[in-house]
């Protein structure tokens, strides 16, 4: 029975199938919201309301000829998409969505899994850099360099912002953090500042518009993905979609008080909360223009980092006041 549950857990619910379906759904949702904000219709003619558009994109790319530039070193070039997908999918498993018991920390939810989650979420950025570096196209090398420069910008504020609610809850286990805030919803207001900082930092991690310099279409052509086509490009796009889902899931767990209730009710609150966060991300994407790489780093260190430290200070004060 336990084997069946783990298999189900691995392959179906927060596993590959669910992440694939929910990733494509969130890409459709993001494109639709982005288009509506621009007074446009967005994808409508593939399936009901264009729901199947990302699926159509995915299968079309899978069916396309796969061109490997001879200058690139083949091994790395071919392995990276699959590796990126694997990393993001495993980080999806740590979300406290189902099949965890608060008392006994099993492998699905153990003390310190928030640190593992953050580490796994920052791996795709390195995969992106390696992808850019291994396809020896000039534009992608510049794109790769930009990916890393940005990494130093938003990584520290993101860690600080995400960890401050954990400090208040007094535990490193996602399930316990969520349970803590479910009992005292008033404390969520303390973390609003951290929520904003984390939102902007996740926008930078996912390289979306204000920070989409690494694959800025108008400047360096395709950026990191210039040389990729066919199946590898499909896998990379899927990795970015799933990364968006997992990152917004993480924010929902930490800042919006997790997913109360059993399997069914938990799933409903998971969908609602992540869609709310993806809506906020699309809002940021529609309202701002792309800023330069030096501005990103100066913005991150001059604005995001101090706010995150302020948030940590507030949390420690509240914790002292509570105990």
């Amino acid at each position: 029975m336990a084997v069946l549950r783990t298999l189900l857990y691995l392959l179906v619910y927060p596993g590959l199938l669910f992440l694939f379906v929910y990733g494509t759904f969130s890409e459709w949702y993001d494109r639709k919201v982005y288009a509506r904000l621009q007074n446009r219709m967005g994808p409508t003619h593939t399936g009901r309301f264009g729901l199947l558009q990302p699926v159509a994109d995915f299968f079309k790319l899978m069916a396309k000829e796969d061109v490997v530039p001879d200058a690139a070193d083949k091994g790395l070039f071919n392995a990276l998409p699959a590796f990126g997908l694997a990393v993001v999918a495993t980080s999806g498993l740590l979300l406290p969505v189902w099949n965890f018991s608060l008392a006994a920390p099993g492998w699905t939810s153990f003390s310190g899994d928030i640190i593992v989650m953050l580490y796994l979420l920052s791996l795709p950025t390195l995969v992106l850099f390696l992808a850019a570096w291994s396809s020896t196209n000039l534009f992608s090398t510049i794109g790769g360099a930009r990916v890393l420069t940005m990494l130093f910008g938003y990584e520290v504020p993101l860690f600080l912002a995400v960890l401050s609610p954990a400090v208040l809850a007094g535990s490193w286990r996602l399930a316990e953090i969520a349970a803590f805030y479910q009992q005292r919803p008033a404390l969520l207001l303390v973390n609003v500042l951290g929520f904003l900082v984390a939102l902007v930092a996740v926008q930078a991690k996912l390289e979306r518009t204000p920070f989409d310099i690494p694959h800025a279409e108008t400047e360096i052509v395709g950026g990191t993905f210039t040389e990729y086509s066919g199946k590898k490009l499909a896998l990379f796009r899927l990795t970015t979609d799933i990364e968006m889902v997992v990152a917004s899931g993480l924010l929902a767990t930490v800042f919006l008080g997790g997913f109360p209730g059993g399997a069914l009710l938990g799933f409903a609150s998971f969908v609602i909360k992540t869609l709310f966060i993806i809506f906020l991300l699309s809002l940021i994407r529609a309202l701002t223009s792309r800023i330069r790489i030096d501005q990103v780093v100066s913005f991150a260190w001059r604005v995001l980092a101090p706010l995150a430290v302020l948030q940590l200070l507030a949390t420690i004060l509240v914790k002292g006041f509570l105990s």
Partner: protein
Amino acid sequence: MLDKLARWSRIKSPWILHLNSGACNACDIEIVDALTPRFDVERFGIILRATPRHADVIIATGPVTRQMKDRIIRIYEQTPNPKFVIAVGACAMAGCVYRGAYNVMGGLDQVIPVDMYVPGCPARPDAIIDGVVKLLGKL
């Protein structure tokens, strides 16, 4: 069953690459115009892509000038396989006003095989969309 799925997905998400081979950029503006709210091609899943690697359909305008000739051939070869070419505007079809100039090859089909011609000087955005939809219907 697999190639039925491939065919469906190819019809439903044609990614286009815009290529100007020395045109007077009236047709180019009309192509970009097709992306804006009034004609919004994203409804059909059409997205403007930046590199030939990501593109399925090459939308080309302009009578091919001699300087651009070998660049166009190189871009055509870079595009991965199931690819189509749409010649937009009278220039791309047969050189329009510049037919017979010393520096112009006179039309896109002198250089790369073309699948669909969209007439008009410039071709209206709705004519361009009609061209893309008809091309996909032929699939």
